[in-house]
């Protein structure tokens, strides 16, 4: 089941395996507002209104519950269906689309009423955990529910809460919200139910078609609920696969160049909740479950960064870390820039005026900087457009550094399956082209020199920073292998590489740059560089590259066996308990304490990993269970609820609450929204996407003639009905406008972008690929100019997959 993704177009080689599965009898279902190249080869294509996925998935959840199609053994033993929820919890059914704990004043939820019965409240571990401004326990108070009801009958048990919550997501409602005919919906429901259970599994694939919404995280949560109910998590051929769009975008999340995280998903230091290292560890160390290990990872990171200077006495220099006290994510950062609060900006291989949202505001922000550094293959739109228009008015200095290509440097990419692969340097970079590794190392050396004499406490971290990486070659390129070795971790005493995160300690005896990557260089071998041919190893291919954690290819794979540790079925055999050997074994590295018998039941008061029962597969969770209901971790509700996008032409048919109440808005004159549903100014739904022939902002494809000739111009896709209604000529020009601005594109009239029929009437949709910009061999307007600053509260990802727009024949008037 592919939804929120156009896999065939955006991941063609990944799609190879979907076609392989299809050849072996698998059914491919594609749910998408457009008929894409994925739909073209799918067994079932379901067009739905952009931005209505939760209603559709919610409908499937209800169908599975009401038709009794859920996988009982799996649900009872592996999910929190039996857990009892706090008496204070109130559902959207009771509160007109809001959950209990909503504070209209602050515009935030107080999630304490969402907790398990008997479990203390805790602030969400989501990235804006400090947004409420309240210091408090994060993971530390996570623990098992005090009461459960394995019969799933108790009115407050998760299963019953779930049933009540999704009761109104009927096929009729799905038809009304999504525009999906009842018959088609039932066909999908039957297909996934028929392909789930002991013998078969269903996999979900999604991409930014799900994430780029003001309620994006809950899209994925709904899929998680579905997959847990059907028993499709932790099993081969199951799961929910995020199809990520860039070579190492997973890597830049694991080793986050993200403001709120430290490597390995450790939270950043929080200003409000500060109390030194002790408080930090206390708040983040779970009582039960794997996160009990937290201190080992945090202290090892500090040792890796500050080396000998980091000691138990000085809290391993934890206090030298900067603290965050709110949302400093991309849009917040650019807004601050536009307000003149930022002086210097580094853009490394990123082109936000085309690739991000609201190019106009992005350029305005760049104009307010003292200086900006851009590193790329060629001068990008972000490096030039903002000052080209009126150079005499723009003071910003711009440094353009040419970068080295992946063929000109060693290093690892982490792909969408968490697989680290080493790419070897083939040739030296030309001229002044250098790797980012080179840039950072030598910038660091210079800054260390500039601050060498300082006695100021603020410079302590920089001075203590371990930065003596060996360099190679004529250009003093840092040895990437040495950096990877630090990421893997080593024993401080003798510098020997650790074999994995199991060897890390909280006493400063080990250093590790990213605990989840620990083991990638076990025994000094470069794991990511392993290349045993596919033909010479098992189908799981454990000897190709290295997957985090612990070279595990399938997470939570203990769930591929039943509570007694036997495979659910022979067809789906993956990891199982070997009674004779007294350990877990199988095709993959077991994602479970390897010697923990299925029969193991934790003693009362057990803590940490010891508290995970032998039949509790989800070891990262405090209760070892898959969460149908999220007692904490989210800012916009413990259960998914359909809300309309920030900009929608219709009113929410499900609840009086129109939009996600907790969404992030940037209310400023330079970021107008189009609010009123039914406002005639922008009557159509606009959705944006990629094409196979180009790559994101186009800097890596529009210069390439072999790609540019395949998709030479920006075009908009409209239905014949809309074309007729607005007098759009096929192949002619159209101007597409939103509350922000207008762009022009060639018109491609096609039935592939259908008008959606709802009870209220017809909703026309406009499709726009976003690859074009003002530079390159082929040029055109950038679709993202149209998109505003508005985001999902949990992850601050913008909403670019569903907004409102108007379209008219002819070219736009304003100059680019």
């Amino acid at each position, binding site marked *: 089941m592919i939804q929120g993704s156009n896999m065939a177009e955006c991941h063609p*080689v*990944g799609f190879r395996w979907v076609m392989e599965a299809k050849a072996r009898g698998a059914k491919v279902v594609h749910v998408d507002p457009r008929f894409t190249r994925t739909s073209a080869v799918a067994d079932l294509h379901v067009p739905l209104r952009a931005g209505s996925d939760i209603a559709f998935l919610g409908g499937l959840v209800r169908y599975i519950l009401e038709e009794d199609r859920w996988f009982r053994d799996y649900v009872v033993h592996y999910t929190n269906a039996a857990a009892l929820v706090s008496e204070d919890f109130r559902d959207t059914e009771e509160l007109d689309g809001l959950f209990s704990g909503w504070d209209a004043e602050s515009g935030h939820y107080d999630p304490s009423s969402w907790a398990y019965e008997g479990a203390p409240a805790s602030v969400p571990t989501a990235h804006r955990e400090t947004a409420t401004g309240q210091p408090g326990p994060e993971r530390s108070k996570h623990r098992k529910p005090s009461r459960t009801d394995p019969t799933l009958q108790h009115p407050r048990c998760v299963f019953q809460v779930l049933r009540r919550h999704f009761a109104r997501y009927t096929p009729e409602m799905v038809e009304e919200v999504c525009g999906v005919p009842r018959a088609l919906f039932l066909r999908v429901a039957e297909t996934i139910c028929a392909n789930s259970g002991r013998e078969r599994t269903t996999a979900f694939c999604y991409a930014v078609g799900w994430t780029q919404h003001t309620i994006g995280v809950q899209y994925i949560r709904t899929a998680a609920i579905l997959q847990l109910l059907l028993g499709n998590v932790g099993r081969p051929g199951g799961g929910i696969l995020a199809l*990520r*769009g860039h*070579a*190492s*975008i997973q*890597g*830049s999340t694991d*080793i*986050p*160049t*993200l*403001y709120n995280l430290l490597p390995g998903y450790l939270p950043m230091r929080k200003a409000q909740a500060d109390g030194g290292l002790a408080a930090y560890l206390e708040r983040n160390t779970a009582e039960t479950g794997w996160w009990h290990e937290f201190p080992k990872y945090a202290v090892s990171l500090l040792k890796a960064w500050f080396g000998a200077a980091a000691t138990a006495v000085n809290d391993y220099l934890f*206090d030298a*870390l*900067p*603290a965050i006290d709110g949302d400093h994510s*991309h849009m917040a950062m650019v807004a601050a820039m536009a307000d003149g*609060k*930022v*002086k*210097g900006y580094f853009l*490394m291989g*990123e082109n*936000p005026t085309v690739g991000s949202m609201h190019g106009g505001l992005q350029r305005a922000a760049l104009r307010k900087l003292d200086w900006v550094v851009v590193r790329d*293959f*060629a001068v990008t739109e972000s490096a030039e457009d903002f000052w080209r228009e009126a150079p*005499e008015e723009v*003071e910003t*200095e711009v*440094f353009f550094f040419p970068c080295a290509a*992946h063929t000109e440097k060693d*290093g*690892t990419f982490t792909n969408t*399956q968490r697989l680290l*692969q080493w*790419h070897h340097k*083939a040739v030296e970079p030309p001229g*002044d*082209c250098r790797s*980012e590794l080179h840039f950072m190392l*030598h910038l660091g050396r*210079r800054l260390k020199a*500039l601050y060498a004499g300082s006695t100021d406490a*603020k410079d302590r*971290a920089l001075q203590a*920073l371990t930065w003596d990486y060996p360099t190679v070659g004529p250009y003093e390129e840092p040895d*990437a292998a040495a*950096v990877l070795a630090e*990421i893997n971790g080593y024993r401080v005493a003798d510098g020997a590489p650790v074999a994995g995160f199991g060897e890390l300690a909280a006493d400063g005896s080990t250093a590790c*740059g990213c605990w989840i990557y620990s083991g990638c260089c076990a025994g000094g071998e470069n794991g990511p560089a392993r290349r045993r041919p*596919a033909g010479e190893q098992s189908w799981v291919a454990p000897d190709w*590259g290295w997957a985090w954690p612990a070279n595990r290819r399938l997470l939570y794979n203990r769930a591929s066996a039943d509570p007694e540790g036997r495979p659910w079925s022979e067809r789906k055999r993956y990891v199982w308990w070997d009674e004779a050997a007294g350990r877990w074994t199988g095709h993959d590295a077991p994602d479970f304490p390897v010697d923990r018998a299925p029969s193991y039941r934790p003693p009362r008061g057990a803590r940490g990993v010891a508290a995970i029962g032998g039949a509790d597969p989800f070891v990262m969770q405090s209760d070892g269970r898959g969460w149908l209901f999220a007692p904490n971790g989210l800012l916009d509700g413990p259960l998914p609820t359909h809300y309309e996008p920030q900009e929608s032409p219709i009113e929410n048919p499900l609840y009086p609450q129109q939009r996600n109440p907790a969404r992030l808005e940037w209310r400023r004159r330079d970021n107008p929204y189009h609010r009123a549903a039914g406002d005639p100014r922008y009557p159509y739904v606009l959705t944006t996407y990629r094409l196979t*022939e180009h*790559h994101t902002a186009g800097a890596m*494809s529009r210069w390439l003639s072999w*790609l540019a000739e395949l998709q030479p111009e920006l075009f908009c896709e409209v239905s014949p009905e809309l074309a007729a209604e607005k007098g759009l000529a096929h192949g002619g020009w159209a101007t597409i406008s939103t509350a922000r601005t207008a762009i022009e594109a060639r018109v491609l009239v096609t039935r592939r972008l259908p008008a959606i029929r709802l009870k209220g009437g017809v909703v026309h949709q406009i499709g726009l690929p976003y690859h074009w910009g003002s530079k390159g061999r082929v040029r055109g307007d950038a679709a993202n100019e149209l998109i505003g600053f508005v985001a999902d509260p949990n*992850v601050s990802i*913008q909403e670019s997959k569903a907004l409102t727009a108007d379209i008219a024949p002819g070219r736009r008037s304003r100059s680019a």
Partner: protein
Amino acid sequence: MAPSKILDALSRWPVARQLRDGDWTALAGPARSPRTEALAPRTERADRVVRSVCPYCAVGCGQLVYVQDERITDIEGDPDSPISRGCLCPKGAATFQLVTGSHRVKTVLYRGPYGTSWETIPLERAMDMVAERVKAAREATWEERRADGPPLHRTMGLAHLGGATLDDEENYLIKKLFTALGVVQIENQARI
């Protein structure tokens, strides 16, 4: 020209070969030229083959990079990869043009305040200028504590946005150095 030479030339004349072989159609053999006889894949002339990974999407297809005279002659799929089995998508297949293309800039460019065009400046000088500016911005915008007490120990005067084609090692150094400098506005395509 000596008669022998003439005979030699004549014998190399395809028509002569036709007569010799009794080939009256000339659809194959005799029509072959010396160049055709010598034809071979250019990859056989490569000095080395380097294993790499496609820099576009996150599938992570294996690539083989062929190098001859320190220049790339071909980039194609790696048949050994369990992920891609030698396949590439159009973008992956165009990687050769991405890394060898004439669009690549090879010098550092600088645009000064109110400048109307780019000027080329030396790499080392540019690095020095950036380092000085980082220090200046940091000094000017350092926040030790928030008005209501909590420690901040940071600068909001610097920001970073990274693409998602950076290596893990590069992200690691970016996060490590900037965090040590007190920069918190460190962001990435990963959020976009």
